[in-house]
């Protein structure tokens, strides 16, 4: 479809409207590819009116003031394929049971509030699309594992942030430059991956080692240590390596890769951990 | 853990292969005579001792990790850790003693059970 050049002032009718199927990229139903994120929509694919359909969502609920044990509660909600699990939870909260408690804020995967276990895997509810699930079966939603459960899908995040704070997650550099410190593009690239972390805890709470006793620093803390260890401007890499050489440090990682699979930001978490381990053995290579 | 692991691969695979695969008859061949014959040679003595030490240290260390992971009650944890430690110590001492004090041709034993070289003594 050639781009028709239109001249004239806004408001003038143009003859170019017939051409509107180009690209065919309405927010319409796409298909239910199982794990198919990032799948581009074929140009020209038919645009259909989206249809809603019923989905059963089973939420593991817990009210500390009433329940001794968490319990599973089912809800039936009407969903569109392009919606997210967060929309389902909102629909439950806003239309069926307002007492359902969960955290959320940005709703598009950048604030890290809504990590939860959906069908047995840690995801951000706002990045888990209904179309990626088999909706002929119920979808199970429960809190992330390994942190103290507070209510419904809310856990106590303090232990998680404590580990984060322990690795001295801030730039330590003695000189005070007049303007910016310099850093080459390659040096900046070296730690790019780990700067993406939004501290959602999806990784740490997917780690089987973390579940065992919760003492392990956890992948998120290591990721954030990595971000500074490999920053050419930082001078305290050794301090962080020493902290992580602790018995609850990197060596407790058993390379199960659950963290890498869970990270909603696509950070190569296990790789970062391995790089920290290597730095401990052979020194930091920037 | 990792270093001992690498060495153990060689040792254990050698051990298994020699005892179960490369010896004609495999497991059936393993008896006093066979083992005694092996333990009479310094090469196998050292091989076995090293394997024993490493395996026990490696295994006990692994068990220690596992106990630390899953046993949260301090008393039970302490008991379990002690048990692992004591077991490791006993086994290492016992195993080492046996390997080096072992007499392949004990007095008064049925000669048919002994390694063939005993007959030459």
């Amino acid at each position, binding site marked *: 479809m050639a781009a028709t050049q239109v001249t004239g002032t806004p408001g003038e009718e143009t003859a170019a409207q017939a051409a509107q199927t180009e690209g065919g990229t309405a927010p319409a139903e796409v298909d239910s590819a199982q794990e198919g994120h990032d799948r581009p929509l074929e140009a020209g694919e038919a645009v259909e009116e989206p249809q809603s359909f019923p989905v059963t969502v089973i939420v593991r609920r817990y009210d500390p003031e009433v329940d001794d044990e968490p319990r599973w509660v089912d809800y039936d909600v009407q969903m569109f394929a392009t919606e997210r699990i967060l929309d389902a939870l909102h629909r439950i909260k806003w239309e069926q049971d307002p007492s359902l408690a969960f955290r959320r804020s940005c709703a598009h995967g950048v604030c890290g509030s809504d990590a939860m276990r959906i*069908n047995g895997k840690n995801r951000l509810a706002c990045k888990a699309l209904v179309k990626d699930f088999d909706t002929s079966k119920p979808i199970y939603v429960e809190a992330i594992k390994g942190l103290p459960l507070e209510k419904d899908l809310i856990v106590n995040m303090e232990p998680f942030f404590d580990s984060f704070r322990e690795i001295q997650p801030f730039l330590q550099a003695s000189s005070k430059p007049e303007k910016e410190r310099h850093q080459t593009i390659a040096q900046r690239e070296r730690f790019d991956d780990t700067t993406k972390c939004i501290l959602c805890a999806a990784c740490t709470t997917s780690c*089987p080692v973390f579940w065992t006793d919760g003492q392990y620093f956890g992948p998120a803390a290591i990721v954030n240590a990595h971000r500074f260890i490999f920053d050419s401007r930082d001078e305290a890499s050794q301090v962080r390596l020493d902290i992580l050489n602790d018995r609850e440090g990197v060596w407790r990682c058993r390379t199960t890769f659950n963290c890498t699979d869970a990270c909603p930001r696509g950070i190569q978490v296990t790789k970062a951990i391995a790089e920290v381990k290597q730095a401990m053995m052979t020194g930091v290579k920037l | 853990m990792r270093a001992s692991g690498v060495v153990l691969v060689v040792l254990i695979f050698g051990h298994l292969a020699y005892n179960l695969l490369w010896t004609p008859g495999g497991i059936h061949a393993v008896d006093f005579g066979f083992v005694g014959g092996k333990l009479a040679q310094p090469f196998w003595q050292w091989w076995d001792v090293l394997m024993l030490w490493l395996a026990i240290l490696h295994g006990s260390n692994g068990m220690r990790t596992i106990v630390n992971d899953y046993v949260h009650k301090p008393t039970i944890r302490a008991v379990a850790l002690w048990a692992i430690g004591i077991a490791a110590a006993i086994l290492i001492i*016992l195993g080492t003693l046996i390997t080096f004090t072992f007499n392949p041709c004990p007095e008064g034993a049925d000669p048919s059970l002994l390694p063939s070289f005993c007959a030459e003594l």
Partner: protein
Amino acid sequence: MSETSSSLTLPDPTPRKTTFSGTLYRGNEGMWSWVLHRITGVAIYFFLLVHVLDTALIRVSPEAYNAVMATYKNPVMGLGEVVLVGAVVLHAMNGLRIILVDAWPWATKHQRLLFWIVMGLVAALMLYFTPTHLINVFSPIEGGH
């Protein structure tokens, strides 16, 4: 006060309980290999305890030693040995994989592939070992050597 009423309907006050609590975390290869590594590690450990003790009988008398060794030679134990060796092989190969993943960037990146390589190696080794060993186990005792 306004009379507008809400369309909100509350669910059953006693919600239907399902029979289980907490789902199993659905990890991938890495997690299951770790579970296997752990299980095989513990299994081998306990076998090792027994194995050192039985070997110690060699110091007691040839008869005593041969008596325990005889138990290893019965066919049920023979199958057990296959499982045991399987565990050792799996543990060992996976142990090597873990070491590689920690130390070698290529392995970290291609851990999934590496897992299947390990599985392949384990299968190959066991395909070699199992028949050889089982033939020995089930073949009549030739006696002597």
